[in-house]
């Protein structure tokens, strides 16, 4: 799960967001930048969620007052190139914990028969 995806997520049960993110393993990947797409996403990004995620992943970025001041390169890096491999997401309202396994957040409430 990359931070762009995290930024869009909300709790399945109560719809609360942002979800708290905790990482046991992280990876930096290289993704071709798409500035036009990111410009378009800029007003859709939830600042609070992004900053919270960066803080809990201990990634330091220069501070800006609003999302419009973020340079596009930095936005690209934090949203597209940082991936949580193993970890968990947690809703601080209803206390549901969603594990992240092999880069995939498991967001199913019912006990899955899929195993693992």
């Amino acid at each position, binding site marked *: 799960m990359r931070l762009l995806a995290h930024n869009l*997520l909300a709790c399945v049960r109560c719809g609360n967001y942002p979800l708290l993110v905790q990482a046991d393993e992280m990876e930096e990947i290289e993704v071709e930048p798409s500035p036009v797409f990111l410009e378009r996403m800029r007003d859709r990004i939830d600042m609070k969620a992004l900053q919270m995620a960066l803080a809990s992943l201990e990634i330091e970025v220069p501070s800006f007052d609003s999302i419009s001041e973020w340079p596009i390169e930095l936005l690209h890096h934090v949203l597209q190139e940082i991936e949580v491999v193993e970890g968990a997401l947690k809703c601080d309202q209803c206390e549901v914990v969603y594990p992240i396994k092999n880069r995939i*957040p498991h967001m199913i409430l*019912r006990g899955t028969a899929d195993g693992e």
Partner: protein
Amino acid sequence: MSRPEHAAPPEIFYNVDEAAKYAMNSRMIYIQSVMAERALQLLNLKDENALILDIGCGSGLSGEVLSNKGLAWIGTDISSSMLSVAMQREVDGDVILGDMGEGLPFRPGVFDGAISISALQWLCNADFTDANPYKRCMKLFTRLYAALKRGTRAVFQWYPENTKQMEMVTAAAMKCGFTGGMIIDYPHSTRAKKYFLVLFCGASSDPSEEAPKALGTNGEEPDEGDAGAEGEGAPTSASVLGASRRRVSRRGKKVSVKSREWIQSKKDRQRRQGKEVRSDSKYTGRKRKGKF
């Protein structure tokens, strides 16, 4: 045709073996891609730099179609085996394991459209106790309506089992605020016939926008060799919900029972079988008048 959703719940059916098929079988890949292209066409995106939600993304075949068009996407699926295949294929979008019947895990107003290829029929089956297909549809559509930006669309290609299912699903979608309806491509063909549920999320910003058209309503078949398969067939207007439901016309007129033609063909058949049959006359098949 056997229906896989009767065999097992999706997270069980799409196990490692089944997921491998979707990675290897070129015919499966081809069909999925063609349907994804058609769904994308029906989505009628105005902007190329859009973010699309793929519900039931599976191994990411439909996602690849989106990536090829330069679109960013996020996928959800209930089968972790299928998602593992997607990971191995290194798809461009992020994938999330989720049950669409529990609702979608997204905050409001983030997507420019949603597509779903061959997934919705799974929702119509009660696979575990206290599963209510209608309620699960409602949960999906409520969260989907919220997650989409206003004026966008969601296109579901699916395999409804009967009219009842179609009615249940569309009723749930309408109740959640969507407008739109079913589009049936190639309605006269058994093999190429495809059902699309096209949903509009709020009014479109463009008033000149036309209702989507179905393909192949004149009875032509799609061109199998053409991977694009775009803009084929003469379009007719789409059946919009609330308006009269389109009925698929039968091939050839059915001959009414006990008519002269019916008797004639029956006699011919029996003659061919070598049976003793009364000779034909002007009285054959004529109705008796009044008293005997």
